[in-house]
């Protein structure tokens, strides 16, 4: 293994490890996005999430502004982490190709 290959191999290991960390972090965040329904002028909330091919709604009821903010932030963070995992997948694919490591 030459010097450049050594660096690339290290980068590959880093990308694999970081991806694992993102997956772990993603599992800590509640799945689904907040849906609002107004009935008789009152706001009620549901959590919409996908289960296989179906979209399911779980009733959350009335939420405080703080709770709404937390749900929205979680949703944003989930998207960010998913984007990072996609980037890492691209890095891993590319690095595997250049260091010539066979994927299992």
């Amino acid at each position: 293994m030459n010097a450049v290959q050594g660096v690339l191999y290290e980068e590959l290991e880093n990308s694999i490890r970081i991806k694992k960390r993102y997956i772990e972090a993603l599992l800590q965040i509640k799945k689904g996005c907040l849906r609002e329904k107004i009935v008789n002028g009152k706001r009620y909330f549901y959590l919409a999430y996908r289960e296989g091919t179906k979209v399911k709604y779980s009733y959350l009821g009335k939420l405080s502004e703080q709770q709404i903010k937390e749900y929205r932030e979680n949703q944003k963070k989930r998207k960010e982490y998913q984007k990072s995992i996609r980037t890492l997948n691209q890095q891993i694919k590319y690095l595997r190709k250049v260091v010539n490591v066979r994927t299992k």
Partner: protein
Amino acid sequence: MSEQSELVYRIIEMLDSEGILHNVIVVGSWCIYFYRQHYKEADTLPPLRTRDIEFDVSPLRNFPHKVDIIDLFNKLGFVLDLKGSGFTNLAHPELMIEFLIPEKGRGTDNPIVLKGYGINAQPIRYLSLLEDKLITVNHRGHMVTVPHPAWFSIHKLIISQRRPASQKNKTENDMKQAIAVWDMIAGMGEQKIIQDLLNNIPRGWLKLVKQALGKVDQLERLESIIGNK
């Protein structure tokens, strides 16, 4: 501007808005990125940057204002990546953050807990050398603290000789960067700074500098400024 550089800017902006930017020192290869912005003679420095950016956080220990650093980086999309015996590292597809602190006395493998910041810093030998002379670089309106290039160069030469054989690539990179920065200082006509520094470091450290330069046939650059010590 690359996504990586933009992320570095967002980190600096965030640390500044929290009032702690002056209390962290950028060390490691990313210093070159800041030298290239600060010195017009730095055009000759290699533009290569690594994914890991290291911060010396020892000045934070004397700073009264406490901040949850992990939470701050989390807001930028970083995730926690504990390493070794619990050193706090933060990871992102574009960057990996390491928090370092100078190793004192006999040293330890255990992390140094920075109370009030939520991080465990990794003690590193010879890091104190970099704290001896610092400069500040204006990075898009934010003042970033980095070691003076002379201290950076000598430190790189020293640590290049302390790396295990398995880190041959890193050793080569250390030496390349050290010599490029030394050349930049010489090009600025400020070799006297290196001379004074070399005359004041412990003999053991000077020996490591000699050893490093000897390996790349560059011993004469040392002898021309401090003789045959």
